[in-house]
C-alpha cells in the first residue's frame, strides 16, 4: 500500500503529549466525517489534514469490516453495529483514541497517537535489519530508544523534534544510511504490515466497544455506588474489547499463515499506554483501563492460548516471550 510508504517517509517523531493549556449532521455510512459535517467538533486542536494518514485509517475503518464480513470472520450483526460509525482525525497531541457516544458512533483518532504507532512499527522492523549490520545492537534496541525519546519529549517539552534517521544515528553512534534498509522491499512490506496491523488492533478495539454497547454500559457503571466496583467494571470493558479485537485479528490471520503479529501489535498499543501512564498525572480513583502490566499479561496469556492451538505454536512462542519481555521492560517502574 503506497500510501503507508508515503506516510511513513514523512514521519517526524515529535509525539509529545500536549501540556499547553489551551485551550451535527450525521452522514450515513462509515467513513471520515466531512470537514463541516459535525457539530460540535470533537477536536481540541486542528483537524488533521494528512491525506495519507486518512487513507490508511480509511482502509482499515471502512474497507476491512466489509472484507471480514465477506469472509465471515465477523458476523452480520457485528457489521451492522459498526457500519455507520464515523471517524475524525485531530492534531490534538493527546495520544489517545476515543469512541464517542453519538449516533452514529464517532471514533476520534489523535494523529500523534497514530504517528507513534507508525514510528514504533518502523523501529521494530528496522531494528532487526540494523542489528544484522551492527552486532552489538539488540533487535529491539531501536524501539526502546524511540520509546525513551517519546517519554523524554513528554516529560520535558523542550526536547526537540527528531527525524527517524537522527534517532538511528544516535543509537548506532555513527552516520547510518537508513534508506538502505527502507529500500529493501521485504523490510518495507513488513513495516507496512506492522502499521496496518497496529491500526487494525486499535480500530477494532474501538469497534468492539461499539458492538458491545460499551458507551451505554458506561452510563450504567457511572451509577454504581462503589468506586471500586466502577473501576473493576470499566477495566473489564477494556479487557473485553482487547480480547474481542485480538480474536477477530487471529481468525483473520489464521486463514492465511498464522503468525503472532496481532499480539505484537497488541503489545505495541499497550506499551504506548504504559508511556502515557508515566506522562499523565495519576488519575484519582478513576482508572478506566487495566494497569499496563495487567493488560500486557492478559495479551500475553491470550496470545499463548492461541499459539498453542496452532501447528507452529512452539516456533512462535519464543518470539512472543521475547517481545513480551521487551514491552514489559518498557513499562515505567
Amino acid at each position: 500500500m503506497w500510501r503507508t510508504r508515503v506516510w511513513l517517509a514523512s514521519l517526524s517523531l515529535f509525539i509529545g503529549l500536549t501540556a499547553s493549556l489551551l485551550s451535527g449532521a450525521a452522514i450515513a455510512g462509515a467513513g471520515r466525517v466531512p470537514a463541516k459535517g459535525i457539530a460540535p467538533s470533537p477536536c481540541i486542536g486542528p483537524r488533521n489534514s494528512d491525506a495519507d494518514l486518512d487513507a490508511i485509517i480509511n482502509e482499515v475503518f471502512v474497507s476491512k469490516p466489509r472484507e471480514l464480513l465477506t469472509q465471515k470472520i465477523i458476523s452480520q450483526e457485528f457489521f451492522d453495529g459498526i457500519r455507520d460509525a464515523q471517524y475524525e482525525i485531530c492534531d490534538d497531541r493527546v495520544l489517545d483514541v476515543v469512541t464517542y457516544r453519538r449516533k452514529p458512533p464517532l471514533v476520534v483518532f489523535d494523529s500523534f497517537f497514530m504517528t507513534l504507532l507508525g514510528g514504533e512499527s518502523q523501529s521494530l522492523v528496522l531494528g532487526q535489519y540494523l542489528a544484522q549490520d551492527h552486532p552489538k545492537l539488540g533487535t529491539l534496541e531501536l524501539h526502546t530508544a524511540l520509546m525513551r525519546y517519546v517519554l523524554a519529549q513528554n516529560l520535558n517539552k523542550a526536547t526537540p523534534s527528531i527525524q527517524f534517521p537522527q534517532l538511528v544515528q544516535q543509537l548506532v553512534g555513527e552516520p547510518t544510511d537508513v534508506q538502505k534498509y527502507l529500500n529493501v522491499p521485504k523490510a518495507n512490506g513488513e513495516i507496512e504490515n506492522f502499521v496496518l496491523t497496529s491500526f487494525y488492533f486499535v480500530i477494532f478495539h474501538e469497534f468492539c466497544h461499539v458492538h458491545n454497547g460499551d458507551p451505554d454500559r458506561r452510563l450504567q457503571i457511572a451509577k454504581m455506588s462503589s468506586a471500586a466496583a466502577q473501576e473493576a467494571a470499566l477495566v473489564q470493558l477494556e479487557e473485553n474489547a482487547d480480547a474481542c479485537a485480538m480474536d477477530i485479528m487471529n481468525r483473520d490471520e489464521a486463514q492465511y499463515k498464522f503468525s503472532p503479529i496481532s499480539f505484537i501489535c497488541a503489545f505495541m498499543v499497550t506499551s504506548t499506554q504504559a508511556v502515557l501512564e508515566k506522562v499523565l498525572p495519576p488519575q484519582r480513583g478513576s482508572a478506566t483501563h487495566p494497569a499496563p502490566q495487567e493488560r500486557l499479561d492478559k495479551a500475553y496469556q491470550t496470545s499463548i492460548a492461541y499459539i498453542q492451538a496452532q501447528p507452529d505454536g512452539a516456533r512462535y512462542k519464543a518470539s512472543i516471550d521475547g517481545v513480551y519481555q521487551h514491552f514489559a521492560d518498557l513499562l515505567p517502574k
Partner: protein
Amino acid sequence: MKKYFFPVAVLIVIVFGVGLFLQKHVWKPAPAICSDDVRGYEEAVQSSLTASGKNLQEVAVKFGGSASKTYIDKLSELHPTDLLALKACDTQCKLLERCLNQNPKAAVAQACPKEYADYKSRVDAAIQLEQKIKEYEGATQTAVDKADTLSKAKQQLAEVQSGNGASGGREEVLKQHVAAAQEDLAAQVNAADALAKEIVGSP
C-alpha cells in the same frame, strides 16, 4: 359701564384661554444648559450597568468556582444617580442653571464663571465614570466569552468521559483545559470586581 362688562369678561377669558393653550402647546422654555447632558450620562451608565448585570448573570450560571464579587454585588445594587460623580454633576448643573436664570442675558462663562468651571470639572468626572463603567461592561462581556469557553470545555470533557478512550490522554488534557478555563474565568471575574471597586469607591 354695565354694557361693556360682559364683552370684556369674555375677552379676558379668551385671552387667558389662548395664553394657556400657547403655554401648553406652542411655547417652549429655553433649554436647560446641562440637564440633558446629565441625563445622557445617567442613561449611558444605566445602559452599561444593565448590560453588565445580564452578563454577570450568564457568567454565574456557567461558573462553578469562587472569585471575589464583593464590589460587583455592591455595584449591582446602585442606581446611576447613587454614583457620586453623577450626583455631583447633577447638583452642579442645577446650581449653574439657577445662576443663569438670574443672569439670563449674559454669556455663560461671564455670567456664572465659578459655577460654570465647577460644572465643567464635574462633567469631566462624569465622563471618566462613564468610561470606567464601559470598561466594566467590557470586562463582564469578556467574562461571558470565557464562561462560554469553560462551558464548551466542560461539555467536551463530559462527552469524552461518557465515551471509551484508549489511554485516558484526551480526558486528561480536557481536564487540564477545564481547570485552566475555570482559572481564567475566575481571574476575569476578579478583574471585573477590581473595576467595580474603583467605580463604587470613586468619590
